[in-house]
């Protein structure tokens, strides 16, 4: 049994690219085709793309089909591996297959933005319009709609990848009148793969309760709701300032930062029951305070847009 583990560990080190013995061994085995020289040696060093024990009885090894061309190479590798580790008949299986490709999936916490944006915000979460059977991304106006400058139908991107189009936003009011939301939604392209881990209930945040969020800049962080009816001024550039009332004011726990630029659009959840309590949209420039729209206001806007009846 020990030999099985040794063989598996040997092949795993090759996958991890630090097993020089493994590389040499594999190159030697794959050279049986008659091809030789340094060019081919370096070509083969990452031929192994997977290794593992199956049921503690069998070593599975996967070879990259782009690096291995002939069956007798595989046969020689199998023979030499078995001899090297004393493996019995049927204890080793070698497959030749293409390198696995990661499947792109849209998830909450990813960095997204309007296609014409310099910078990024965060994909907060998804809305599902059951009537159309379409998914919608939820984030901020300043992330998806460029502080009112965008038009419905504009492209929304993840890096250079187009993922959807702007479907609606609440205009920011810079006149001094009170705002309650920095909110926008985008329709996701129908062929995109959506990663939804579950459904959230929506409720108001309570002063003093502990919350968490996953943002594109700072990842998962933890904070405490200091106020749930805070009034604050937010500078949106070009001399424009918007006043927001009835906002959540959140501080990071133990002096840690709760959010930084790029985290805008994150859904804030209560730690106690995972309920959606706020939509992150602003913070102090020294990162000591985070401001978020009340989830109840967000929910009412969703209803206004016709997502709920």
């Amino acid at each position, binding site marked *: 049994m020990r030999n099985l583990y040794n063989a598996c560990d040997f092949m795993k080190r090759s996958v991890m690219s630090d097993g020089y013995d493994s590389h040499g061994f594999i190159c030697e085995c794959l050279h049986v085709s008659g091809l030789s020289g340094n060019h081919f040696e370096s070509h083969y060093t990452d031929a192994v793309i997977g290794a593992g024990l199956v049921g503690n009885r069998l070593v599975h090894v996967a070879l990259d089909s782009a690096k291995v061309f002939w069956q007798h190479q595989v046969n020689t590798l199998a023979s030499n591996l078995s001899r090297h580790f004393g493996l019995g008949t049927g204890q080793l299986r070698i497959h030749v297959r293409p390198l696995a490709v990661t499947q792109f999936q849209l998830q909450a916490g990813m960095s997204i933005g309007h296609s014409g944006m310099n910078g990024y915000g965060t994909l907060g979460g998804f809305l599902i319009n059951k009537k159309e059977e379409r998914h919608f991304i939820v984030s901020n106006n300043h992330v998806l709609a460029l502080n009112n400058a965008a038009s419905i139908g504009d492209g929304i991107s993840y890096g250079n990848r187009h993922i959807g189009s702007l479907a609606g936003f609440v205009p920011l009011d810079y006149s001094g009148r009170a705002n309650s939301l920095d909110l926008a939604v985008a329709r996701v392209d129908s062929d995109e793969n959506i990663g939804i881990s579950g459904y959230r209930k929506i409720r108001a945040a309570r*002063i003093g309760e502990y919350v968490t969020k996953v943002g594109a800049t700072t990842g998962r962080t933890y904070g405490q709701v200091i106020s749930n009816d*805070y009034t604050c001024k937010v*500078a949106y550039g070009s001399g424009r300032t918007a006043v927001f009332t009835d906002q959540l004011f959140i501080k990071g726990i133990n002096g840690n930062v709760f959010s930084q630029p790029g985290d805008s659009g994150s859904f804030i959840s209560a730690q106690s029951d995972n309920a959606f309590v706020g939509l992150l*949209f602003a*913070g102090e420039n020294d990162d000591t305070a985070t401001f978020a729209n009340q989830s109840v206001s967000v929910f009412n806007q969703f209803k206004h847009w016709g997502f709920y009846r």
Partner: protein
Amino acid sequence: MIETIEQAKKALESKIIALNSVTGIGIVILNGVRMIEVAVRDEAGKSEVKPFLKDSLFEGHPVDIVIRGVAEPH
């Protein structure tokens, strides 16, 4: 007559627009004490806001003044 901390907060709220130095106002809980927090741009802002806080109407409502700049979209 202002009698509650909510009324005091509402009365101060108009200052956020009227006074350039005021950047935030809210009812907060600090060390278990429910109070009003007023955020101002700088020390000069503090002195600008203090006369309003000295108003007898706000007596009995603990007020914490912190220095904080205008918030930015994150």
